[in-house]
């Protein structure tokens, strides 16, 4: 659908082709952006199911949730929050650089974003291994001792499923960032054509946005 010339330079604006069924570059650009926004809607509702389950079970098994959430590490969660909002900033700056046809700035910012995403996953890895070691696992696998309430397993089910799916989105996001990083390095993008950078950017912000809710609900208030 979209292809770009490989002979792009920081100053010159690389050539690109408007797909045959669009009447102008603007229409094509808008269509892409609307498509991404519609996709984000589906992501919100996808995670929404889990938020719904969270609220309902929190309502029912309130004591279990309060007790269980003390077993999550607030500091690690806060650290991850900082990683993600910083990566959101660098992602936004990468889009801005691409809009101004700054090739190396785009590449650098994407690279930082990629690293921060990696940091997020490393922290997550330590959290997970710690939980698994303590037997703080979902449902039937829950084996931790010394809980006063019955339903901590439900809390950890929601914790693992939500953070797990979110983590999967981070991994997918890293793949996408890598893809546009390579394309940016190749010089595909310019002020005339940066739709993929912006699309991946929007996706990445949504991943951040979901974490903005996950963090307080799971780690802070339980």
């Amino acid at each position, binding site marked *: *659908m979209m292809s770009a010339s490989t002979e792009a330079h920081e100053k010159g604006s690389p050539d690109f082709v408007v797909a045959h069924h669009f009447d102008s570059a603007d*229409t094509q650009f808008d269509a892409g952006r*609307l498509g991404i926004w519609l996709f984000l809607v*589906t992501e919100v509702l*996808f995670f929404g199911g889990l938020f719904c389950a969270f609220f309902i079970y929190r309502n029912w098994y309130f004591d279990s949730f309060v007790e269980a959430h003390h077993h999550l590490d607030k500091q690690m969660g806060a650290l991850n929050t900082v990683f993600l909002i910083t990566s959101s900033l660098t992602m936004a700056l990468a889009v801005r650089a691409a809009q101004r046809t700054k090739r190396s700035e785009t590449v650098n910012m994407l690279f930082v974003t990629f690293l921060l995403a990696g940091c997020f996953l490393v922290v997550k890895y330590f959290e997970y291994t710690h939980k698994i070691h303590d037997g703080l696992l979902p449902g*039937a696998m829950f084996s931790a001792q010394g809980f006063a309430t019955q339903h901590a*397993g439900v809390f950890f089910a929601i914790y693992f499923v939500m953070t797990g799916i979110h983590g999967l989105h981070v991994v997918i996001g890293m793949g996408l960032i890598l893809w546009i990083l390579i394309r940016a390095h190749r010089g595909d993008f310019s002020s005339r054509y940066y739709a993929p950078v912006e699309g991946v950017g929007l996706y990445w912000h949504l991943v951040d946005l979901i974490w903005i809710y996950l963090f307080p609900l799971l780690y802070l208030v339980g």
Partner: protein
Amino acid sequence: MSRAATADAVYDESGGKNYINAEKGVVSWLTTVDHKRIGLMYLVSTLTMFMIAGIFALILRIELMKAGEDFLTPAMYNQAFTLHGAMMVFLFIIPAIPGGLGNFILPIMIGAKDVAFPKLNLLSLYLYWTGSIFTASSIVSTGLDTGWTFYVPYSTTVSQTSVIAVTFGAFILGFSSILTGLNFIVTIHKLRAPGVTWYRLPLMLWAIYATSIVQILATPVLAITLLLLILERAFQVGIFDPKLGGDPVLYQHFFWFYSHPAVYIMILPGMGIISDIIAVHSHRRIFGYKAIAFSSVAIALVGFLVWGHHMFTSGQSELASTIFSFITFFVAVPSGVKVFNWTSTMWGGSIAWSTPMLYAMSFLFLFTIGGLTGLPLAMVGLDLHLHDTYFVVAHFHYVMMGGAVIAFIGGLHHWWPKMTGRMYHETPAKIACALIFVGFNMTFFTQFFLGTRGMPRRYHTYLDQFQPLHAFSTFGSWVLGAGLFLVLFTFIHSLLKGERAPKNPWGGKSLEWETSSPPPTENFHRTPVVTHGPYDFATTGK
């Protein structure tokens, strides 16, 4: 009107080139990004699934002819009805109209060269195939016996069948559905040809647009539901498992939050088709264009507020049941408005007794019954008796089969000349329509009586007192099956021996009738400029 309308010849301007013969070979089809080819592949795939699922239905009816175990064991029967339901819903009705007819007709109707994201469109098709393989694979492995609703805890802890494969298949099909919906919304917003304003969209497109909204908003919830179901079955995470503190009724909320709106994914495009058929085959301006258009959107949106009416007996709270019952009646209002407008469109028209029009009238008849029999199911007190009986089975077959499928077959006849460039033989097509109508009513009207008398659904055997009605219903299913096979033969005959179709066999006024039959790859040789509405037929007035 575009300049192209002046030419009469079938293969004008293009020198015999059209989208079908533009490129040759299987690879050119598998790698195509042409919405028409993708639509055609969707049609062939979904119709194949329809046939398999339909054969399951005939097998079920034969088993039910007599009480007791005839030739299916209970386990086989349960798998047959599950696969009938799951394949009909996920592999046929949901994708067939948007994926097949919608894909083909939507860009042409707005004068576009293609959908907004052609590659994504192809991806949808591949996802559909992948999901179908997962779902259909259960036929040859251990089957599936949960019912198409996959209710927990049966599906997670009791069933010994391939639940994970099928739910994963449905999960993938969900993505296919989402991407199709997304593509259509963007296409309608961004790719309308000059002069195609919102109120000049054929009503089919308003229906598809409303459908797409539902696909975007509801399908993700199905995805997360099925994912949780898979995790529950594989790892016993305890979100739905009652043994671990989960709530099986919560699963039903999750499931129906998608699956009730999914009912509108199935029926809305059918309503769109009917609006077009009635107007075109009556040569009549549609009565109440805006009412029909907005009622589509209203049905789609109100449809999100009523899922709990599937759960009146499930143990959900009385408050929820009452609220859901109340809101459910508001879905009936826009549906009623549509029906009244369709009938009024026929008033003062010039009604051709063509096959599509006969299907449209069958639709009106059957859908009215289907809609009216939904009312006692919405009246929460009456539903306590009728829920999960054959009354429900009959009701949703009247809406899904008598509504969506009849509209789909009518639409197939309506756009068949455009898609294939061939006419079909009217006589067998009309006989088929009559057989379907009669067989359908024999099969399913009987089941209203069964249901009110207390015959529960999903029963492999039953009390002897229900036997005569069940037998009659089975005879009806043979008539219905014969009608459907006759449709198939009509189409095959048309492909082999049919006359060449002119570009506008029905005298329609919307854009698809202005390009050749079949259309060229880029749909129009020149981008059309539209100066009138889709139903501006010659009138007696001013």
